[in-house]
Structures are given as C-alpha cells and as structure tokens.
C-alpha cells in the first residue's frame, strides 16, 4: 500500500502518473483530484454526505516530505464528510471511497491548501498527495442523546437553515420497518410540526438542513411517536421510525434584531397561546420551543415608558415560569432551576418561581435548598398548602439522606467501592421520588391549580 514509488516528482509527472493509473474524481472533471485505488473496499458500501467518517491518512508534498500523518499520532481522524469541514479534495475523495478502501489522492492546490499554503508546513500553490484508508463511517448524530441520526442523500446549498418559526416546504416519506406509512408534500412552521402530524425528530432536524437537501432521519421513539404511537399511521408505541425528508424551500423567520418592538409584541401573545396549547396536550418539548421564542425576542427589550416596560417584564417572567414547569415535566431539573432563577432575579418573592424551584431542587436531592424555597413560599403566602406538604416531604427525605451520608462517610473507602452501586441506587431513588411527587401532585392540583398550569 505504499506509493513511495511515485515520490518525489514534479507537478506534471505526478499528474501523468496518477492520470495513467487512476481516475479524476472531481464532479467537474477538472483534474483537481485524482484517485488511485490501492486496495479495494467493500463493494457498494460508501459513506453518505454528513456521515461521521473515520480515516487514517498521511499527507505528503510532491517532494516526498510528510507534513501530517494520523498513523504517527496513532489516532484515527474523524470528521463529517461532505460538509466543508476539511479540504475540498477530502470531501470529494472520501465520498468516492468504500468501506475499507485504501487509496492515494493527488490534490491540486485549488482543492487543497490554495495559493497561501499552510505556514511552516505547505508552501504556496502546492499539489499534495494523501494516502488514505477509510476505516469506518456512520450516520451523523444530531442530538446529544443520539435520538436522531441523519444520513444525507443530496446535499443542500449554502449555510442557511430554517430557524424556529420558519416556514418550510418539504416532501416526507415516513417508514416503520419496510412499511411506508406517510408520503406527502407538506408545508409547516418549524417548531409546530406537531400540528401537521410531523414527529418531533423531523421538526428538530429542520434547523440542521439546507435548501434542497434530501436526507434520511432515523428516529428513536422519543423523537418519533413516543410511547403513544400514532394509530392513524398504524405505528405502535415505542417504535423506531425512519423519515426521508426533502427540504424543497423555506423562508426563515425574522431574527429578533430584525423586528421592532411593536412587531414582537403583536406576535407574542399568539406564540404564548400556542405554547400553552402544547403544554395542555402534554407536548412539553414543543411548548418549550414556543416559550423560548418569547424570551429570545423580549429578553433584551425594555420598551418606552413604565407601562410597556411592565408588559414586557410580564411576558418574560411568565415565559420563564412556564418553561420551568415544562422542564420539571421533562425531568430537566437544572434547566427548571435556571428559569426560576431568572424570574427571582427580578422578583424575589415570586411565589410560583420559588415553588417550582423548590420542586426542581427537591428532585435533584438538594434538600436544604429546596426547603429554603418552600419556606420562602410560605412567607409570601402562608396559605399555600402545597408548599407546606412539600416542606414536610423535604424534611423526611433529608433525614433519610443524612442517615445514608453517615453510612457512606463512616469509611471513605467503602465509598469508592460502593460508588458504582450507589449511583444505581440514587437513580432508583430519584425515580421513586419523582413518582411519589407526581402522585402527590394530583392531590395538590385539586387544591392549588394555578401552580401547575401555564399562565
């Protein structure tokens, strides 16, 4: 698999040698990248655009001088292919390879380091040769939890993506296993795909797509139709589904800075209502998107005059409170706390904010902090029975926790040994407390509805 036989040489003879032995892989056939296959890969098993590919490579000048080598680093190199992350020659070259293939690429300056080169390493206007082995590739993971995987069939153009609130025209084909359950042209507003029967995963992938892109989205149930399934498509609960999506066109929603305040205020109440609808339907992810739009618009506005200022403040704190509630439901407790904090910054005796922060902290096992919050709630409103109930549950949990601590600290080394088993146990305990919290909530809800509804 060595090509040392070709090196060193000048531009012309290099081109001649590569042209004789290999193929021009550039789309324009301008001889910018020649490829000579050294070892055939698996037939037909090629990466798709956007895939996370893993390669080993050596880069050399035509003089034979090595300037970069992943083998020497003993660490394969990963990147998303076809997205402009690397030299043009690489995007083109790697997309032409098959799994396991080994090849040499002769790259002209326009496809590599250009007229400037790379200081210390590559002189201006240099052709370079890469020895390349395609070790592996897999679809691109779009979310931290790995719930959405994308593979691009046709690359879109430019950098611009539809943002939340953008109007998109797409063609969709939804499959569960081999069965096509949904095939249509549809136009929807990003963040509100739910209204058109579009699963969360497709909606959330929109802001990663470019105009003209056609991709496959592999969705985990959480991003598909969840544990409810979708009877009208005959998709059962907890099913993984695949969507083929073509983004035919879109119009971005205006950025916050492109709108003036009155424009924003006109739109806000509609967005809020939308968020509340989603919340009531149990679509917390979707509700979060709407509430967050309000904050991104109004966070930095102060308006003219006291009245307008107060109006803006009210919208912002309500949005934060609603977000806190959504994140409590989604079990994203630290985000719930953050949102409450934002409200408390302005209004330190906000009953709802204190209560919700207390709830979140309790579920994060921060007992004394939670207790302080509930006590504050009772200072603000001594008749808040829910807070009283939470307070006593805090106390009992705290006691339980203290006993646990005592045992743990009795011998620090036992702690090491127990570390693993403990995390397991803590998790279980957290689940339990969540569950009992929810049961408690039903009772609480009857007494104090306002604390639990988006406002």
């Amino acid at each position, binding site marked *: 698999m060595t090509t040392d036989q070709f090196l060193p040489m000048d531009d012309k003879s290099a081109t001649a040698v590569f042209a004789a032995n290999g193929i021009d892989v550039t789309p324009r056939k301008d001889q910018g990248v020649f490829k000579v296959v050294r070892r055939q890969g698996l037939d037909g098993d090629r990466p798709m655009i956007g895939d996370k590919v893993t390669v080993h490579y050596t880069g050399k000048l035509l003089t034979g001088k090595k300037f970069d080598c992943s083998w020497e680093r003993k660490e394969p*190199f*990963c990147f998303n292919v076809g997205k*402009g992350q690397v030299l043009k020659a690489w995007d083109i070259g790697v997309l032409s390879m098959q799994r396991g293939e080994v090849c040499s690429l002769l790259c002209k300056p326009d496809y590599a380091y250009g007229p400037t080169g790379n200081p210390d390493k590559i002189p201006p206007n240099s052709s370079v040769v890469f020895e390349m082995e395609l070790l592996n590739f897999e679809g691109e993971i779009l979310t931290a939890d790995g719930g959405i995987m994308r593979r691009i069939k046709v690359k879109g153009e430019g*950098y*611009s993506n539809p943002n939340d609130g953008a109007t998109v025209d797409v063609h969709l084909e939804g499959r569960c296993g081999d069965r096509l359950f949904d095939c249509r042209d549809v136009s929807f507003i990003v963040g509100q795909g739910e209204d058109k029967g579009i699963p969360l995963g497709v909606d959330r992938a929109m802001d990663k797509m470019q105009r003209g892109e056609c991709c496959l989205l592999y969705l985990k149930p959480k991003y598909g139709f969840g544990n409810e399934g979708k009877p009208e498509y005959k998709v059962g609960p907890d099913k993984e589904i695949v969507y083929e999506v073509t983004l035919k066109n879109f119009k971005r929603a205006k950025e916050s*800075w492109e709108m003036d305040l009155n424009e924003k205020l006109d739109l806000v109440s509609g967005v809020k209502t939308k968020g509340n609808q989603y919340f009531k339907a149990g679509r917390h992810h979707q509700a979060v998107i709407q509430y967050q739009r309000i904050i991104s618009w109004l966070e930095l506005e102060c308006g003219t005059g006291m009245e307008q200022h107060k109006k803006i403040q009210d919208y912002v704190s309500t949005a934060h409170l609603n977000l806190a509630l959504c994140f409590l439901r989604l079990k994203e407790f630290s985000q719930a706390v953050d949102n409450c904090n934002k409200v408390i910054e302005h209004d330190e005796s906000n009953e709802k904010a204190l209560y919700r922060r207390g709830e979140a902290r309790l579920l994060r096992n921060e007992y004394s902090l939670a207790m302080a919050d509930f006590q504050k709630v009772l200072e603000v409103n001594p008749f808040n029975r829910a807070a009283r109930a939470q307070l006593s549950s805090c106390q009992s949990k705290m006691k339980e926790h203290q006993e646990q601590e005592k045992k743990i600290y009795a011998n620090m*080394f036992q702690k090491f*040994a127990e570390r693993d088993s403990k995390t397991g146990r803590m998790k279980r305990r957290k689940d339990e407390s969540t569950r009992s919290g929810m049961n408690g909530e039903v009772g609480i809800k009857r007494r104090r509805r306002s604390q639990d509804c988006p406002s």
Partner: protein
Amino acid sequence: MMNEDKVHEIIQRWRETPEDLKPEDYQQFRDVGAACLSGDDGQQLLKFIQDEKNQGIVKSMGCGLLAPLVDELVRNKKSHDHCQTAITQLTKTCSSRTLLESFLELIEDLDPGAISETILVLLPHLQIVLLQLDENRAAGVGLVLSALHKQLSRLPVPYTQQQEEADEHGLCRSCVALATFTRPFIDGVKKKDENCNPTPEDEKLKAEILKFCMLSLKEPLLEAELNQDRKSTLWLFAVEIMVILPAIKESLPGLLFFSSLRKSTSMDTDLSKESAACLAYLLFVQLIAMDTFPAVFSPVFILQCNMEHINQLLSRKKESHLLKGLALFAKSLEKVEDNSLPVGLLDLESFYSAPQNLRQVLTNCPIQHLRESGLKVFQLFINKLDAEAKHKFFRCMLKTSHHAGVEGYIVNNIRSQIQSSIKGEANKWFLGMELLPLLELVLSLPRAAETDLLTNMDKIMESLNLLRCLLMKDKEMKSDADIWEELCRIKDEYLKVLRVCISMSRAYYSAEMKVLKEEQKLRVKEAKDHARSTRLLKTITVKNDKVTHMSPEVQFQVLQSALVTFDLMESLVVRIDEITEETQGKTH
C-alpha cells in the same frame, strides 16, 4: 506532659496488644509524636518509626503522624531530612488506603498561608501511595487531583511578568509539580492502551485525568497571561496539559470541534465551555501542540467552531478572557480569505453573538488596549464577509448597536464598500436596489427632529459625508433611474428633518449661551459687591443641572463647541444642496 516512664509503659502496652487500640490511643500516639517534633526530637521519632519492634504500632497508628510531620517540614527546614525519611517509612509501613485518607484530610484543611509549600512536600509521597493502591486507584487519583486543584485555585494568578517570575505564592511551581505528579499514571494508561484493551478502571482513570486537565485549563491557565516568546512557568504548564490530552486519547479536534455531541461527562457545561475555549486559545494562538493537530481542516470550519469559543471568552468581563478572545478571533479570521464568508454563516447563533460581544467591548470596556485591538478585529471580521454578508451585518449593527460611534464606523465602511463597487465589479448589495434599505437605516435620526445631535454626531457626520460622495458619483448612481429617484427622496427627507433639528438645537444652545453670559456679567458685578453670592449660585443649579459641576469657563467652551458642530453640519448640508443643484443642472 507525661514523663518518660509513662510513655514507655504505654508504648509497651501498644506493642503487646496491638489488636485493641482505642481512639484515645490514636490521639495519644499523635500527641506524643507531635510533642517529639516540637521538642526538636525528630531524630528520636524517626528511630521509633524505624524500630523493628514498633512496626505493629506504626502500621495501625502511624498515619496520625503525617499531619505533624508535614507541618514540621513546612515550618522548619532544619528537620527536613529525618522528617522526609519518616514519611517515606510511613508510606512503606501503613496501609495505602488509610494513608490516602489521611493525606486527603490534610489537603482539605491546608493552612491558607502555606498552600503551595505543603503541596510541594506532599506530592512525591502521594504519588507513591497512589501507585501502591491496587484497587480504586482511579477514584483515588481523582479525589487527590480535585482536592489539590481546589486548594491551588485559592491562590492568586500572577498578573505581571515580575509577579510570575517571583511566584510569591508558589502557584506556578505547584502547577508544574502537579503535572509531573500525574505522569506515571498517564504512562501507565498509555502502555495499556498500546498493549491491549483498556479496562474500565483505566477508562475511569482517563476520565479523572481529563477532568483535572479541564479544571487546570480554566484555572489558572484561562486567567494567566501567556506569551510564546517568554516561556514562563505557566506556559510550560500549558504545554504539559496539551501533552497529557493526546496521551489519554483525548483528541484535540474532539474536544474543540465535536464536543457538543459528546456524552455528557461529570463536568458542568460552563466549566467545559470555558476550558475548551482556553484550549482553543493555547492551540491556535500560542500554537502549543499545533504540530500534532491535523492540518486538513478547512479555515472556514475552524473559524465556525472557534466562534463558539470566542463568544464564550468575549462574554466575560475579565481582561484575561477578553484578551484571549480577541487574539483567537483575529487568528481564526486571518486564515480565511477576504470577502469570502457567506451570508448564511451569520444565521448561526455564535456569528450573531460573538460580534455583539465584541461591540460591547468597543463601547463599554474601560481598558484602552482592548478597545483598540477590538476595533482591529471588528474591521478584520467585516473584511472577511462577502458582499451580501456585509450588507446583512451592517444592517444588524445599525439596528442593534445604539451607539453613534459604532454606527459612524459602519457608515464609513458602507461608504468604502460603495466606492469599491463603483470602481470594481458592481454588485447589487452596494450599488443596486439592495443599497436603498441600508441607506434608509443610515439616513435616519433616532428621535427625528428631537434627536440629540451631539451624542449622534459621529453617525451624522459620516452619513453626510456618505451622501456627499454618493451625489458626486451621480453618473454611476443614475444608471438606474428608480434607484436615483428613491435615493433623492431618502436624502430630501433626511435633510429636511436634520435642518429642523439643527436650527432647534442651535436656538437652544444659543439661548443657554446667552443665559450663561448674563450670569457671568451678574457674577462679575456681584464679586464687586462681595455679597449675595449664594443665592445666585443656586439659580445656576436650578437652571442647568446638567453642567453645573463645570466651571463657567468650561461651560462656555462646551456650548461654543456645540455651536461649532452645528455650523459644521449645516455647512455639509449646504454643500450637499449645491452638489444636488449642480447635478440637476447637468441633466436638464
């Protein structure tokens, strides 16, 4: 104090019945040891520890002596040798677990005045203890590293070169010692990686070391002033960290560019964001470890990823952070071709907020050299945008900056864009239909006729200058009749309001001037009378509380220069009118 016989008696008991030692015994043992040391009898203590007959006692209670021994070492250089030997003996005899526990306790309550001294004494012994540990070594290393880091982060980071060289608090020395301390663990992991599949324990150790690296990047490295030409101690520490990362199989591209999708580690997000930002700075600006960084990334991608880090750095209001942010911004832009960044990039969150943070630096930062280098970066950023992106960025800045200085600067840039598109290739963004919405933003007064001309002077002067240039290039501008017509409409509207504004402002300031003169006359008169001065002074405060803290002479100058400014604006307006007439004359 016990007498010698009593001590011997007790020791004898300990020797005979090592199995039923009580907490009191531990305390007593410790007290006797401490007494020995304070009585300059360290030599005797060492003998006791080394005595074959006492090994049982030492094994079970020896750890209690660590604290007094270390204390003695730090305080008293004289007893250095035998204290060191004693600790070494203890680390051989006692169980590693209890040793580690004692060491951790020791670190927890370090004397704030002797943090670095103590750490330097502890490190070699700690290393031995940890290497002796068979089980849970990773957890032990993790606990030790984070405890040590916590103590070190209490020390002030040197600000000047002299401070760093003097290293009064020992932070720099301790950091380097800490890096040396981690080396055997890293070598162990590395060897295993080469030979076979690493065990879960190895993975845990790597995670702990990574955590330590990230902590160190944030503190002290992010706070430190680093300079490639002056390879200071902290610079060398930075190099150490950059060597450790690849050794534990943490690839730099992974940490810098693809971190958002990493499985959430035990670190909180702010920490890892700030640490990654510092890492980017060390790599791209200080060029540490640059030779091991893959050379195949495209400059635009690097800029795109670094923008997150730049944004993080510029969002903090600390000199060290801002300095690093600006340097990273400049370095990342330099690699990109001029006029090449497409408008779509500006849709990315970080491409909006990083320039906004930069703008904050320009307008609010009290440190002059930061504002100066900030302005250079600001211009560099503009230069890299393509025409459409420039257009969008200018619009965004005019709408969001609320600062006449920045606006004036943008207007100036618009003028040079128009000039260069007249000279070179015409583009619709600065010489066609799309120019008009931009001009509309430029040629507007924030509060119409009531605009404060003085605070908005920078923008107004630049705008008038731009108008003048546009009208003088009437040949090019008239090529499209619609655009010309619209341009004239915008211009007329603007000048109409501006004229009203100027005359109102002038009337106001002239009146103020008159009042001031009257008052001065009065005061002169008054001075002659030597009386009733207090009452009159009061009238001044009531009339004009904005300028009362200035002396009348300064007030006079301020008013005078305001009037001069209005004259200047007016003369520009008149000049524009003249040009308009000339160009109309030409067409008719």
